[in-house]
């Protein structure tokens, strides 16, 4: 008798949390190295007027680690598929999705597959490609050699790499506790998963998909983001048909943590619009 493989229930697999009240649903999707707790400031601000859906991507936070497979998650489409399954499970349609970092592209892919699920996408620090492309003159912020060095550092001593990477990504050196928080969530990831996921993200290229997105999109771009240079925000806004770029007064790659009020304020402006 063959063992029937039952996918772990989506709620368990993605550690789904639904809270708040309101007709409109906002899905908050975290980025690499963090988990749903990164959105606590925004949750606090919006939960009284919105239904809020939080989840952890497989491999991160309190997701079901048994559901992780380096093969399956070798493509951002798999995360998008997970997201769509989550939407189907919760019977969501016309939801607003706020996606940080990699979740920007994940939600874009999900919206390409099933646009009916989303009414608006809000990207925070998203990038369609991290590697510079000399042929097309695209600036992603990294040379391939930089990334190879980064993977090397990650594999030789993950925890040492974390302690170096967290402050750089977080920015805001005058508040070291922020970097410590990010370092903690980074360290919580299984090092093998972290390395595989980082590789998938940094090597991804979804520039070709941008023009196909129909869902209205807002791009929040902060300053001195080590992973996403300012020009990437311009690129996104230029290539996504129904997009609007907002440069926010915040530093580093995780503005929702380091400058929560600015991010919350900008999001509520987008919701009101």
């Amino acid at each position, binding site marked *: 008798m063959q063992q029937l*493989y039952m996918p772990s229930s989506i709620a368990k697999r993605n550690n789904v949390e639904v809270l708040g009240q309101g007709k409109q649903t906002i899905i908050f999707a975290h980025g690499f190295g963090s988990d749903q707790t990164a959105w606590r400031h925004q949750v606090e601000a919006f939960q009284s007027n919105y239904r809020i859906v939080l989840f952890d991507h497989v491999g991160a936070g309190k997701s079901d680690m048994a*559901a992780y497979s380096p093969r*399956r998650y*070798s493509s951002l489409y*798999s995360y998008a*598929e997970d997201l769509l399954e989550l939407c*189907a499970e919760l019977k969501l349609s016309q939801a607003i999705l706020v996606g940080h970092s990699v979740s920007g592209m994940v939600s874009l892919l999900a919206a*390409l597959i099933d646009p009916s699920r989303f009414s608006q996408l809000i990207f925070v620090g998203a990038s369609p490609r991290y590697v510079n492309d000399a042929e097309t003159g695209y600036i992603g912020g990294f040379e391939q050699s930089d990334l190879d060095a980064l993977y090397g550092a990650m594999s030789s001593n993950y925890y040492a790499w974390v302690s170096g990477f967290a402050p750089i990504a977080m920015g805001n050196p005058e508040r070291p506790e922020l970097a410590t928080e990010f370092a903690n969530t980074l360290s919580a990831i299984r090092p093998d998963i972290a390395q595989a996921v980082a590789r998938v993200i940094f090597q991804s290229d979804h520039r070709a998909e941008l023009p196909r997105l129909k869902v209205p999109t807002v791009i929040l771009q902060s300053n001195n983001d080590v992973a996403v240079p300012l020009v990437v925000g311009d690129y996104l806004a230029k290539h996504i048909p129904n997009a609007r770029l907002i440069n926010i007064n915040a530093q580093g790659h995780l503005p929702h943590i380091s400058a929560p009020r600015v991010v919350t304020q900008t999001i509520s402006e987008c919701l009101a619009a």
Partner: protein
Amino acid sequence: MFSRLNLLRDRLLHRKANPLSPCHPERLPSFAPLVLGFTGILLTLEMLGGCPPQLWVAPVLFAWFTLYPPGKGIALMSGVGGTGWLVAWNGDLRHFLTLLLVGLISPLVRRNLLEREWQSATQTMLASLTQNETTASPEQAIAYTLTTLKTFASADGAIVLRQLDEVTAEALISLPENALPDRLTTPALFAEAIVENRCIYYPDYPVIPTAAAVLLAKGVQSVAVLPLSQEEQVRGAIVLFWYTSIQFSPLLQQFLESLLKGMGNLLRFQEITLRLDQLQARLRAILETIPQGVVFVDESGEEGWLNHVAATQLGLPEGAAEPIAIAQAMTALRLKADNQEDITRQAAQFFTQPQVEIRDWQWFYRQPQRQVLSLSSTPIYLRHLPGRLWVIDDITERWEADVAMQQAKEMAESANRAKSEFLANMSHELRTPLNGILGYTQILKKSTNLTEQQRNGLEIIHQSGEHLLTLINDVLDLSKIEARKMELHPHDFHFFAFLENLVQMFKVRARQEITFVYEPIAPLPKFVWADEKRLRQVLLNLLSNAIKFTEQGRVIFRVKPVEDDLQLDLAKLRFEVEDTGVGISPEQLDTIFLPFQQAGEKQRQTEGTGLGLTITRQLVQLMGSEIQVVSQPGKGSTFWFDVVLPEITNHGGMTVSRPPLIVGYEGQRCKVLVVDNQWENRAVLLGLLQPLGFETLEAVDGQDGLNKADEFMPDAILMDLVMPVMDGFEAIRRLRSSPTLKDVVIIAVSASTLDFDQETSRRAGCNGFLPKPVHEAELLEHLQTYLDLAWIYQQPEEKPQRWETGEVMTTAKTPIAFSDTLALLPARSELDILLDLAMQGDLQGIMDHIDHLEQFDERWLSLTRPLAQLVRGFEEQQVLELIRQYRDRL
């Protein structure tokens, strides 16, 4: 009615959106021409036969209802229309019945024909599957099959999926290409079909709970999942989907299910091909990475292959090559080698038998640069086709390294031999003059007409000489140990006598302020098997140190059995020397075993060479033990070591006392020629031989020895090896080639302590070898062996056994008593005589003098007893030392 019309519209629209291909079974591709032909003929016959026009409709109706699906709306409309038409026409009822019959029969005919069409489609597809397996790549075969399947099933999309792991499935082929948003998806898509191991049909896909979001998002309404499961290895599925809700007809289901098996095989074929590709990729990577050239030739001459390195070596393009071209290139390479003779000889050896394994067939090249190739070859079989695999390894670097290493080794060995010779020479050259210096210093010191200054000067010369001699002995010992030339020579000996001997010596040596205590703890073995000489050396050193570094108090010498921690049933003994001396600080403890390190204040360091403990430790290590020490500065030190001394219980042949004294031999007198350039050495040997009745003659060098031997015609020659004019080796060679003297017994006598001389002299042709100083017992044993002598012994005296336990437990008082006793005797003049005799090595003289003293006064016994013991053991050095100790104490 409305809903039916809607249904009709849907179907018509569907037809438009998704027209069936002409070859689709539903279009009856094989029967349609027949039906049409039949209809045409029937119609023609009717027209020509004058049938009423009403009946002309019948064949048309038949063709329509046979060739097209029985759309209920159309059938109903036809019925209604027909009836209306009949009524309007007011026709014959028979005509109407005929038409009705045709209308009812045609669908039955259609169903029958459809079954046949589907069957034929199944057969066609299965045939194409098996055909395609061998002709196209698995991907192409799968793509082709999937296309056909999609067409026959009128599906909007078809996907072949393979499960990669528990949560990952990969789309091998998707029709259309964008059927899935990505190559990767989840196996949940086909999990149910795999578990139930049958085709699953979802006519209304959106309502099932596990529906895939990616398919739903595309608007998929119906799905069929065909599981492809190969035991445990491969899991996958074919997923067909439709954008409209469809009913799965039994014919379609049957068709899909009958295809499953063939598709499963195809998937396995694909899997095998994939693995083969991976293996090939790996093999290629290996072959291109290894530094050896690899060549495969099949012996039927059909196939040949070589890797990148082999291609460079043979000057051929890499990859597949004609076996003839490879063979020619290899022959050309072989003929360019410089060691043709060796190669040909080895080839003759290799190729005389079939299926030979060739290993390390070396081809040497000087041009264009030095190169050494090592070829290996193994016969291999590829599907019963014999072939050969060649590996060509460039071993130039290894070969050059080997050559260099061999040269270095030879140089090192030659340097080592030179060092050994140097040590042998030094040993000889240094001891001889030193013995002269020391001997004459002793004699000079006896002169009465010396000034105080001269006496002091002589004392300094004496002490320095003694020190130098000890140093030379120690350095030689140490270098022998370090060159690993020191070996233990264990033998049986009387352990009690050995200990008593030591104890007596140190009781005498201990100063007045020190109590020397000997504590043997029973049970101790009576006889043991060990290297007596080295064990004594170790204990002498430890006891001498204890006395040397103890100003006052006591020195305790303990010997006791210890628990054998390994339970090997071997007698393990602990030797322990405890003193109340200056002690050693913890910092010094680390260094006392290093050469030239000593404890205590500066003035004490003048004594000894500083090598004693180094040698002692090395010797103890040779005995398989380790010397231990605990010490407290100012309070004293304890040194000990545990050593396994196997007890000898079967000592029937051994006597407790020394063997009786040899006084002569039976039979004719034997003649012995003593050849040595030093009169002292000759004197010692003559002194040993003459009293036993040997006729002796002396010669001063090799040449002199040859001359004397010619006249004297000796029975045996004792030959020194290192001499001026002609050395011993040369003399031995000449003697051996002399017709009259070639059989004479020759015993080499050498001061060299190295094995080297023994070996060389034996090769030169001598019968035996005696190291200097010559021990009487050894000399006599050699003579007895080679001259076949029967000794005459002195009648043994009846003396009580001295080595009973109980008697050995003695303590302190002796030295004081001894000194007191000696003070009453004319000790100094007697000791001077003994010292002279000892310096000359005249042991017999000492024995005679001891007898004389003992007869004169029994009080001498405390001195003569230990001395006689040492003399009987031929311990010349210790005899000398003991006599000096006695004199110093006066």
